[in-house]
């Protein structure tokens, strides 16, 4: 009996915590972590009065959830941290086209879907990072140079399971063809200082500690370390420099975090309003200042740290195609022995 009473009390508490979904709202499934999206959504709610309901999770899980919820799905907007997932959602018939002159004007063409289903919110660059006192960067100007025998045992990069690497390989494959990239990947694997483990920050830390001299990582991780509360992280990051790859050819690999409106969005109008809000200079600046991601809006200034990394030429390959090539990229890495 006691158990029953306790159980009913708990159930009631839980129900009261989860507020029901009402009109005048917009529902967001986000693969961007709560800390990196909620403040912006709260700002939107404050300014417009439209309530934003949020579920975060991995993009694939959220896509699966949308598929199973089908036409009754409450979701209005899907936000992901790479183009591949948006392509997958689109191919699964889960998104709808949003034709807007604003989006077309602000977002460069290679960073949005040709059928207007999705577009990029921010840009994430993946250059080489190195320890100036250890790495011989003479003759290191391309990502392809990482397979040179002289860098044997010097390269740190995270696992092939990581989406940033998959997209990078997919983009390279578009530029150079599968055969060349596979050969290069084998050379890279042979040069690895250790079996891949950890995230991007870990690769940077390994460079700082001297386990390797060169790493491949997204810049906002380095910026995050440089602005960390933790003094040792700041110190480690200060030992590492950014090298923009392939500046005279196809450019440094970039990916996006982006958004799409769900096919069965019950609040499509509010959703479009939120998307437009995310492209406003003030929101774009928030991304740049808070998480040091490159704004897609070209007039928005970069954070000081990002300016410190310098200007660069970004790879201009269509992210649509990159997204399509993700699975093949993973199979290529499997064959190359990239753990």
């Amino acid at each position, binding site marked *: 009996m006691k158990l029953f009473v306790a159980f009913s009390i*708990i159930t009631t508490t839980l129900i009261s*915590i989860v507020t029901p979904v009402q009109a005048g709202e917009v529902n967001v499934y986000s693969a961007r972590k709560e800390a990196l999206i909620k403040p912006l959504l709260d700002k939107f709610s404050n300014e417009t009065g439209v309530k934003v309901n949020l579920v975060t999770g*991995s993009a694939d899980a959220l896509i*699966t*959830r949308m598929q199973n919820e089908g036409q009754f799905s409450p979701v209005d907007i899907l936000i992901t941290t790479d183009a591949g997932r948006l392509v997958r959602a689109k191919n699964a018939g889960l998104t709808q086209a949003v034709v807007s002159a604003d989006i077309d004007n602000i977002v460069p063409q290679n960073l949005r879907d040709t059928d207007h289903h999705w577009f990029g919110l921010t840009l994430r660059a993946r250059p080489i990072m190195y320890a100036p006192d250890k790495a011989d960067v003479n003759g290191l100007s391309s990502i392809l140079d990482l397979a040179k025998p002289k860098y044997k045992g010097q390269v740190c990069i995270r696992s092939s399971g990581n989406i940033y690497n998959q997209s990078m390989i997919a983009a390279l494959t578009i530029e150079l063809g599968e055969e060349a990239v596979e050969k290069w990947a084998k050379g890279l694997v042979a040069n690895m200082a250790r079996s891949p483990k950890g995230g991007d*920050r870990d690769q940077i830390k390994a460079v700082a500690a001297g386990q390797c001299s060169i790493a491949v990582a997204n810049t906002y991780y380095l910026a995050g370390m440089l602005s960390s509360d933790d003094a040792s992280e700041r110190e480690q990051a200060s030992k590492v420099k950014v090298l923009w790859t392939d500046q005279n050819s196809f450019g440094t690999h970039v990916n996006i975090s982006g958004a799409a409106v769900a096919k069965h969005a019950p609040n499509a109008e509010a959703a479009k309003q939120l998307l437009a809000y995310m492209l406003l200079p003030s929101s774009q600046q928030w991304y740049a200042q808070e998480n040091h991601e490159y704004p897609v809006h070209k007039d928005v200034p970069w954070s000081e740290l990002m300016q410190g990394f310098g200007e660069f030429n970004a790879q201009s390959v269509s992210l649509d195609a990159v997204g399509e090539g993700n699975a093949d990229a993973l199979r290529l890495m499997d064959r190359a022995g990239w753990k």
Partner: protein
Amino acid sequence: MLRTLQALTGRTVLLILCAFLCSPLVIIIASLLWPDSAAWQHLIDTVLSDYVFNSIVLTLGVGCGSLLLGTATAWCMTQYEFSLRQVMRWLLLLPLAIPAYIIAYTYTGILDVSGPLQSTLREAFDWQFGDYWFPEIRSLGGAILLMSLVLYPYVYILARTAFSEQSPRFKEVSALAGLSASQHFYRIVLPLARPALFTGVALAMMETLADYGTVAYFGINTFTTGIFRSWYAMGNQLLAIQLAGILCLFVLVVLVLEQHSRRRIKYYQASTVIDSRHDRKKLRGAQNITVSLICFLPVLFGFFIPVLQLVVWAMSQLDTLLSADYLTLVTSTFSLGVGVAILVVCIALLFSYQQRWVNNRFSYWQIRLLSLGYALPGMVVAVGVLVVFGFADRQVNQLSHLISGEYVGLIFSGSLFAVMFAYCVRFLSIALQNTEAGFGRITPTIDDAAATLGASRLKTLVTIHSPLLRASLLSALLLVFVDVLKELPATLVLRPFNFNTLAVRTYELASDERLVDAALPALTIVLVGLLPILWLTKALDNVNKGS
């Protein structure tokens, strides 16, 4: 006649409940019927052998590690009187509160090449990386060690109960038969405790098989990382579910083999448990120190060191602690844990009670099937739940459209109900193992006596069995609660809008490598998890005293 009818209804209800709870599993196993040969060929050519090898080594390693730690500590606690014994009663369970992925993060923070320990060494001796040897924590061996450190309490809890319930007379008989202390341990104590030990080890191994956070962070390719790679990177959900299906079948086979190997043996204890406190041998000197260390070291490495690291990290984040948002996070996590624990234990009690009465093949398989969920990665269970609930929602909507012309929308999917259901599927095994083991120790003559005296089955359950089962029920509640607290992937996928748990918060920050920011929610998981552990240690202690 009425009674038969009642029993029949009861069984039908349980059957429906079982079918419901098994539906995600059935979907997962059934997926094996449609193999995608090209994708499988690629796996076989490249990474599958890696997955299988690493999974087997990791699981067996953690099985041995937790068996060793759990049995040794439980044996010391039940047999010896030593200096630290009073405190150890509380401490030995603490590592249970630490999720495997959190211990992995903390030790990597300390021991990694860029961590404080190696940095200090390098500075102190002016070494460069490569000048010295240091064990790589992010390796298969490291994973086995760390996971054993947090999973051994599963064995310890059950072993301790089993050891303390063994009659001290066995020892006397062994002595009379001229067996040495170690012969007595290996030939009498261990075989008698085997069901309990196996149960504990099986839980630890199943948890290891289902782990994703640790192996992904350590870069070890196992079945689970394979599942996620197939699903995420290749976008091949079917392949992912099929890998999970194989995992499921594997566990089923192991469970069947174990049951088969002891099918003719029944373990019952004498109905009176004798207070064995006076039998504990008082240790002095070196022996005292050794035994104290055996018990303390697992707790030191499995709890105090990681918690200390978390505290150090969390110091800078204390201002978040007071925010209202944080309080909501704690209360919702805690309520969810308690609610689900009670629900799961009630369901488990019903099923194992049914098996006691209707002990046939069917009810036996029913329970085995219900136990499978624990070995499945939470994400896979979540997919099963999504499919089942999505289907249910479509049917409901078609029906309502037919009747009223209106769609009612999603009722099951995206609700807290879906989350709780997934927990039931996933954690029923823990509760079942406990209730089954508990029922197994109650001799059937008690039921016969109750029946002779005219007590109904329900009354027997409530007034006779439940008090006798107290230890098992409590440990079941404890284990489920703590597991819910730590559960991550299923919660991530299934939770309703604006609902977060501590594990979700921790994971989001930690997976972004913001370990310092993740420390506070991680520490809170540990602390919230401690409350029931402390309360239940006390309760377990009372039961184990035979009061």
